[in-house]
């Protein structure tokens, strides 16, 4: 996979992040390395492994159906969102 400036711009859009001009080349190089690192995994033969394979054979833990919510936490998260208003997250208009 080729990481270039076009792909980085697309990722900036998707992630709602802005990468400054002086960091672009460095980040593109780092992303190339990350993808190459993850590519190591393709050396493993997974053809005989079930899709449901997990590192642990135990069942997932079940939670009791008891409500709890600390609204100070979501107040905080909203405050740190790029844009929020009246406790809504505000995003650029979604094309319907």
């Amino acid at each position, binding site marked *: 996979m080729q990481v270039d400036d076009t792909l980085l711009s697309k990722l900036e859009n998707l992630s709602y992040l802005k990468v400054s001009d002086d960091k672009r080349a460095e980040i593109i190089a780092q992303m190339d390395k990350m993808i190459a690192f993850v590519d190591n995994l393709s050396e493993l033969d997974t053809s005989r492994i079930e899709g*449901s394979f*997990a590192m642990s054979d135990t069942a*997932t833990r079940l*939670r009791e159906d008891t409500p*709890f*919510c600390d609204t100070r936490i979501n107040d905080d998260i909203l405050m740190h969102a790029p844009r929020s208003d*009246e406790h*809504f997250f505000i995003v650029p208009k979604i094309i319907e």
Partner: protein
Amino acid sequence: MFEVIIGLEVHVQLNTKTKLFCSCPTSFNHTQNTNTCPTCLALPGALPVFNREALHKAVMFGTAIDATINRTSYFDRKSYFYPDSPSAYQITQLYTPVVEHGHLMIDFEDASQKRIRINRAHIEADAGKNIHEGDISKVDLNRAGTPLLEIVSEPDMRSADEAILYLKKLHSIVRYLDISDANMQEGSFRVDVNVSIRPKGEEKLYTRVEIKNINSFRFIQKAIEIEVARQIEAWEDGVYASEIVQETRLFDQAKQETRSMRGKEEAADYRYFPEPDLLKAVVDDAMFAAATQIPELPDAKRERFVQEYAMNAYNAEVITSLPEMARYFETMVALGASAKNSVTWLTVELLGRLKNGVTIETSPVRAATLSMIVKRIEDGTISGKAAKEVLDYLMEHDAEVDAVIEKLGLKQVSDSGALEKIVDEVLLANPDKVAEYRSGKDKLFGFFVGQVMKASKGSANPQSVNDIVKAKLG
């Protein structure tokens, strides 16, 4: 001639108290984004923990449709990018759902039945809501992460009517199990319809078109009929291959047409893979034992009503369609009203008086009260006509049945002393008719009874009047 092929996907919002993977409450009347936490907002590092109750309710549903319950099921991750899902994926069950291979029976008016197969029911998380305003969209994630049970039928339905019968039966089962509010207007019972046509006799399946999110049975019926007409027209005009494509369409109720959503879909690649944040979901023996003990379902209850109360199939169907209605009826009977009159007074008189969104659950007249009204007819205290006045009054006022009868002066006169006096007066006032009757003109009997009823202003008990007139005329 064409055959219509319909398959249905229904998203049922499970009525758990908390979300599927976090403890946030599932109530929706709260201020936007107050029922959110790091997990349902998908903050880095926050992990999902599966709600026991959601699994329990899914097993109940599987039991009700006689399905295979997968004691071990798995979660999968479906990637999609949209602001109603902060994680940019939905946790669902693609490869091994908790419920598979069930069925339900739909009932036709002539009492025949058809078996509709249910391919699967799987657990998944709901998305949040967006409000579009000018050049921005507001995002409310209170609903994000609410548990859904997606119920997928096989393409076994052959008409809009069959689709509606299936949906009503499914709705009724879900309500009986009390696993969802199943309120279509509020979106806790959402229907997607898959429709295709084929020439009668062919086995091949042609292009299926999906119609999304239609929020009433009536509109679903209409949407199917309109879409089928569109497909048949395209076929007959020879443009089927170009006009009818596999896509999602929206039903426009005002314009009475289905409209393509093309553009929004653009070759969705969901990149499904096993959810790495959750281990397998296991229904242990204790849960299995508890969740497979389900309440009496509508079909069984209907059969029982027909047997136990000699009810006709139609009435039994009406009364068992909603658990609240069945409960209302059973309470009336338990409190001493006859089954026959309870049916009429519930389905005709009470339902006929419920207006403006008032339902059997919010009816101002409760089962105990309606039962008392029926009992007062049955013990001769009031006439059926007077009972309607009592019911009218009670729809508007909170009061005791006997007090209302008293207040409105509706008590029938059964007291023979008082009635005899009226009968005597009537006979005295009509000596010629009495003579005619005695010389063999039997038909005049009705005349005397009518006169007595009139003199009593309708308050006389007709049976008592009959007896007394008969005795006096000898």
